[in-house]
């Protein structure tokens, strides 16, 4: 009876206990990391290799298009890519097509440039935000100057020596887009397809599968999806950032959910029951078959 009662009670478990478990599974690994290994997938490896293959000292065009709501997935990518570029002595030219983007990018740049000891206007240029997403991406094929006459801090582009010979996609050996929206499609259509530029994409985990076809067609050279993609990249670049820190918590939360589901099903079996407990709603199968 006691045992059966326990399982029965588990079936009706107040969901707030689940919330507590999820909360702990997130916070504890962040405070006490064990650093589970991260194995890079071929797509992220290809992303990394593409950055590695750019000759030292070359400029790289970096479009970072996201806002605070999804920064959890994309900000770690930005920091990792920037730091990797800095280490290889590449010169990133950065822009954003989202009005709430500059604040985030400023922070990412501060972290990356401080860590690698790089200076603005010498080692990188931040052009800031420009509205009109698709038309800006088109405009970058012709003239960066007409799109961004000044950089983010108000310095005229022509006063920045690094920008002297840079004015269009043609002047960059590589374009990188980290995006949480359809902006990625525009870069694929315009920068990669029309201007035949090598293009790398970082996006949210949910978006990633939609872009696999562009890898096989060669329009994308590499693809990094979500926090896991960012963690793989950090691992390749020998960095230890927010994504890798987060992966322990990811594993923990996933394990907690899997164990809960298994326990729920054991309880269902033990209590003999296809009878529904109170509070249990119809599962996937209650629909008309």
């Amino acid at each position, binding site marked *: 009876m006691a045992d059966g009662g326990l399982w029965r009670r588990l079936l009706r478990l107040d969901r*707030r206990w689940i*919330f507590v478990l*999820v909360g702990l599974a*997130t*916070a504890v690994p*962040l*405070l006490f990391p064990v650093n589970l290994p991260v194995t890079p997938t071929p797509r992220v490896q290809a992303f990394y290799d593409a950055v590695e293959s750019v000759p030292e000292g070359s400029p790289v065009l970096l479009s970072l298009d996201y806002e605070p709501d*999804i*920064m*959890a*997935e994309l*900000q770690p990518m930005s*920091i990792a890519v920037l730091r990797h570029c800095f280490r290889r002595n590449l010169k990133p030219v950065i822009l954003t097509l989202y*009005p709430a983007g500059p604040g985030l990018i400023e922070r990412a740049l501060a*972290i990356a440039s401080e860590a690698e000891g790089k200076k603005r206007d010498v080692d990188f240029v931040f052009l800031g935000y420009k*509205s009109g997403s698709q038309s800006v991406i088109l405009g970058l094929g012709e003239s960066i100057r007409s799109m961004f006459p000044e950089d983010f801090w108000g310095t005229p582009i022509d006063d920045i020596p690094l920008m002297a010979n840079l004015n269009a996609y043609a002047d960059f050996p590589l374009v990188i887009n980290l995006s949480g929206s359809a902006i990625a499609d525009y870069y694929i259509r315009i920068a990669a397809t029309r201007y035949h530029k090598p293009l790398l994409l970082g996006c*949210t*985990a*949910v978006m990633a*599968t939609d872009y696999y076809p562009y890898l096989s067609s060669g329009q994308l050279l590499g693809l990094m999806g*979500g*926090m*896991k993609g960012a963690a793989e990249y950090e691992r390749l670049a020998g960095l230890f*950032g*927010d994504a890798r*820190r*987060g992966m322990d*918590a*990811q594993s923990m*939360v*996933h394990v907690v*959910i899997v164990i809960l589901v298994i326990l729920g099903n054991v309880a269902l079996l033990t209590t003999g029951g296809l009878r529904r407990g109170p509070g249990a709603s119809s599962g*996937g*199968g209650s*629909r008309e*078959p």
Partner: protein
Amino acid sequence: MSHSVDTWIMALLTLCVFSFLYRDNPFYRFAEHLFVGAAAGYLLAVQYQNVLVPNMIRPLGRGNLLPLVPLALGIMLLGRLAEKTSSASRWALAFYVGIYSGIAVPAYMQAQIFAQLADATKPWQPGWGAINSALILIGFLTVLAYFFFSAPHRGLHGASARVGIWFLMVAFGASFGYTVMARVSLLIARVQFLLRDWLGVLPGA
């Protein structure tokens, strides 16, 4: 601990929202009402600055009279503020609905139907891949059978519809499991914000 006012505001609002997990309470209610007002106000300000000013006010100022058409429609819409004038808004609605239905017809035809058909009629993968191609074909046909409305789910049609729902369930399970990580990422970022940016108990990035 952070010394920035903004960080404190951010942290307290974050905690207000988290408190919802326990139950509805005055802190959550405060955050909820603040959020609705702030979001509605922000949207209004953005629309004014990014749509009305460049597309209506400035052109009218330059003597371009075309924006008078949407201005008239917009005023008709505002007619709803009073009972007497509210039927004028039907014209503005009719215009708006017409535009988006008109765009939708070819757009859905192209992006949903033809794009998928073009993909489905591609030659099969060679070798073992052909098994996958065959499975995709079976899944596609049985799911279509499930959605077929003009016949009851009986006999062969019923059997295919049943297989169709199995494919749907596998797809739903995959989508569900795949999404967990994205959601957990967002939670991790919030916890990192609280522990690091606000409390300062985690090492910096």
